[in-house]
């Protein structure tokens, strides 16, 4: 599904991502973990076209997508959410998700219809599935932080992605919201046959839902494997897991 080989990026001499390779199979749930500054977000930005890699290759379904524009990657079936919430703050919750649906269905260039009622049912259904139906009319920017994260997930899902990259999907959420969001992710991944690649600092979550874990440390991939393997890895315990596992 997603095949990443030797991805490399440096910022003014500082190597943020160093020759990282990773393969994600269809319907696999893969976690990328590592301490702050390990290069996880940069790694994601390289995959989704926000940053142009200095070296390496990203293949999506056998197609080379290295360094192509985000809107094209999105059209090829890759969705993402961002570490810092990334929504349309002045649009309503409804309009946020509806905009993504309109764009995905190729209606973005239509200037002769009225947008207001288009895809109303689908938008509401999606909002219901992420638990935001009751807030449909709220301006997104005033939502609580956890709700904004949920909304971002909704925006990503509206593009009907095959692969979803989530950068700390539960950051800043309460324990309760984290629990709900993870349950939601598992459910949606199951229903839609999604492939998930995510970063997360909550090890409990990581070890519960990931099929495979990759550990980044100072830009390098330190370890990769099934959760038990990673948990047992001496290097990983030393640099990162520490007291967690």
């Amino acid at each position, binding site marked *: 599904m997603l095949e990443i080989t030797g991805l490399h990026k440096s910022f003014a001499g500082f190597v943020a991502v160093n020759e990282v390779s990773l393969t994600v199979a269809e319907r696999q749930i893969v976690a990328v973990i590592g301490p702050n500054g390990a290069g996880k977000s940069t790694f994601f930005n390289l995959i*989704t076209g*926000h940053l142009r890699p200095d070296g390496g290759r990203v293949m999506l379904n056998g197609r080379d997508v290295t360094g192509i*524009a*985000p*809107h094209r990657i*999105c*059209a090829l079936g890759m*969705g*993402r959410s*961002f570490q810092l919430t*990334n*929504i*349309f*703050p*002045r*649009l309503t919750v409804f*309009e946020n998700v*509806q*905009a*993504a649906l*309109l*764009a*995905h269905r190729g*209606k*973005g*260039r*239509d*200037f*002769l*219809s*009225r*947008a*207001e*009622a*288009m895809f109303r049912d689908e938008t509401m259904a999606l909002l219901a599935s992420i638990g935001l139906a009751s807030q449909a009319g709220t301006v997104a920017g005033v939502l609580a932080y956890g709700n904004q994260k949920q909304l971002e997930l909704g*925006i*990503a899902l*509206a*593009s009907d992605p095959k692969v979803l990259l989530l950068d700390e999907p539960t950051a800043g959420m309460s324990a309760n919201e984290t629990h709900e969001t993870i349950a939601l992710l598992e459910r949606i991944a199951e229903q839609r046959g999604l492939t998930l690649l995510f970063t997360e600092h909550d090890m409990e979550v990581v070890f519960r839902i990931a099929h495979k874990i990759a550990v980044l440390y100072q830009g390098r991939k330190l370890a990769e494997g099934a959760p038990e393997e990673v948990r047992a890895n001496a290097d990983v315990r030393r640099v990162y897991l520490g007291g967690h596992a």
Partner: protein
Amino acid sequence: MSARRIPWTLLIFLALLPLPWIGSRYQTFLGTEIAIDALFAVSLNLLLGTTGLVSFGHVAYFGIGSYVCGILMKTYGLPFVLAFPAAGLGAALFAVVFGFFCVRLTKIYFAMLTLAFSQIVWAVCFKWNAVTGGDQGIADVPFPNMHWMASLPYVGDLNINGRFYLLSLVLVAVCIAAIGQITRSPFGRMLTAIRDNRERAAFIGLNVRAYELSVFVVAGGFAGLSGALYGIFNRGVFPDYVFWPKSAEVMIMTILGGMNYFWGPTVGAFVLVWLNQEITNYTQYWPAVLGSILLILLFALPGGILGGLARGGAALRRLLAGRGDA
């Protein structure tokens, strides 16, 4: 949501229609200028308020429109029915070329490049004597042929200025209605998404630059149409119409009225043109007054006039609701 939609364009149009019969010559004259400026400001707001693109050079397309229309009608004797759409197309064409470069930049760099292009257009208009008349401009641009209006009921009684007011009002209303439709369309929704968050917009699958270029061209085209009317209204086309202060003026109109509201720019055009006329009767320091308006705007009325009214209305409702509860 949709039940209480009010056809504002139609209502405002109907309310303004009788002006040449009930108003003085002077008021009809002001009304024409306000209508034309309103279209210019509404076209700018397609960039500013809808897409979040700050263009300091919108006057270029207004000016190009007025030159194209003026040159075609005066120099080549073409009728208004051809010269008017040609002005919009000409301005849109230039917007394609300039916009192609501008959308490659963002924020202040975008704004600076739009300004740079408008200054180039100004310099060309100022120097190219053979075509633009240089600093003398093009005087005596003729009125459109409006004899056909004589056969219309009531309209036949109006003088040429009254008729031109009606013609301008109709054309401006149609253009503003078209811009309103664009704003409310799926395309318009994409523009507001881009305004809110360019990065995220790219990741719902939008080619952000292509959208920005499209709206730049549309806005330029409508600015060109307003410029065409402006040249005829002033009976001539001059390099001032392409000079940057006019960009600043239309931006002040837009922000004064409220760029977050579709009708904000129109309200701003009305208030600014009217104030300008009133104040120049008393003092020659219009720029100082304009500066003061700007200060008040920035500190006391951040959402413009309509933003202030909306806040006032909300406060009043809260007050009334509070009293109802007590």
